[in-house]
């Protein structure tokens, strides 16, 4: 039973964490591409 609860909690956390990381990478990439195409930061 403990293991099932552990899987439930860590699994849900991992999914949100993973999606959060992907979210951040989308925002960062968008920012970076925006800077570069405006001829700004290298």
């Amino acid at each position, binding site marked *: 039973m403990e293991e099932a609860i552990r899987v439930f909690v860590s699994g849900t956390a991992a999914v949100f964490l993973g999606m959060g990381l992907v979210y951040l990478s989308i925002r960062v990439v968008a920012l970076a*591409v925006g800077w570069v195409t405006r001829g700004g930061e290298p």
Partner: protein
Amino acid sequence: MTQELLASLGGLAARSGFTHVTWGHGVMWLVAAGLMYLAVVRKFEPLLLLPIAFGVLVANLPLAGLMEPNEGLLWRFYHYGIQWEVIPPLIFLGLGALTDFGPLLSQPKLIFLGAGAQVGVYITFFCAYLMGFDLKEAGTIGIIGGADGPTTIYLASRMAPQMLGTVAVAAYSYMAMVPLIQPPVMKLLTTEAERRIRMKRTRKVHPAEKVIFPVVGSLMVILLVPASAPLMAMFMLGNLFRESKVVDRLTGTCQNELLNIVTIFLGISVGATMSAESFLHARVIFVFLLGLGAFVVSTASGVLIAKLMNLLSRDKINPLLGAAGVSAVPMAARVVHKVGAEADRHNYLLMYAMGPNIAGVLGTLIAAGVFLTLLG
């Protein structure tokens, strides 16, 4: 002379399948016929259900030995394609080449709707465990709620191969029934006013973002959950092919010939695992019930996460979009559009719904990777 003739005929009869047919076989033939009906007449996911149906039929022909270990033709497809974990990743190569991440990239916060829908996977996992399935089987049943055929098959082949055929048939059947399953749940959990919410115009996505995203995105996910690597890496490679726009031949092959070929082998191998011995148990009914529950709960958790996000932010999301986090692409997105149009015919939610729909694929991949890491 006649004695030898009769003996020879008798020998042939003893070695013919007709004399070895059991009730179990007969039931499986009916199952195969039922699946063929669903595929051909009702058009439920025919690309998968038709070869699965046929695999069920021929694997349940006595003495044919198509699933005989080391010798049977279908056993070889199953062993080298699925047990060696080659086919599901190749399917993802094709899917990645078909997927347009634009709708997700233009409104990134929708990714959390894809995450929310996966909560249903874990709730179903827990319920399955409480009902007596062991942890690995419960995880395999739970991932049905991710509404992703190849991921379900991949996880089952790793964690619970005895249930492979069952969970695959459940997953594809319920995916086809999404227009029936989702709307009642969506309407129960939302008010008419919420369903009429219009989404704001989203930003235009630069083509460079679409090329960089598969690389960076897969990096993040594979570093966090290395067990998701085989599927994630192939998904993103296919997407990279597509968005780079410099390998159109390869992209075309991935989207068409490759995907079709692998789908054929996937379907027939999965169907062939459904022997009478493995399928005709009372537990199979519970798998189907839990699988249905998985779709319902995932829809609900997706919608509820959207409502939660609306409490925390000024820009309101139409909560119906949460249902698209159930990654039956693009059916769930179409369902969201239709339910939204019922509330307000001028509301065109389809493209907004594709964002969470695709995010849901990533979410299911992560969830499967977590199950493998903790239980595999």
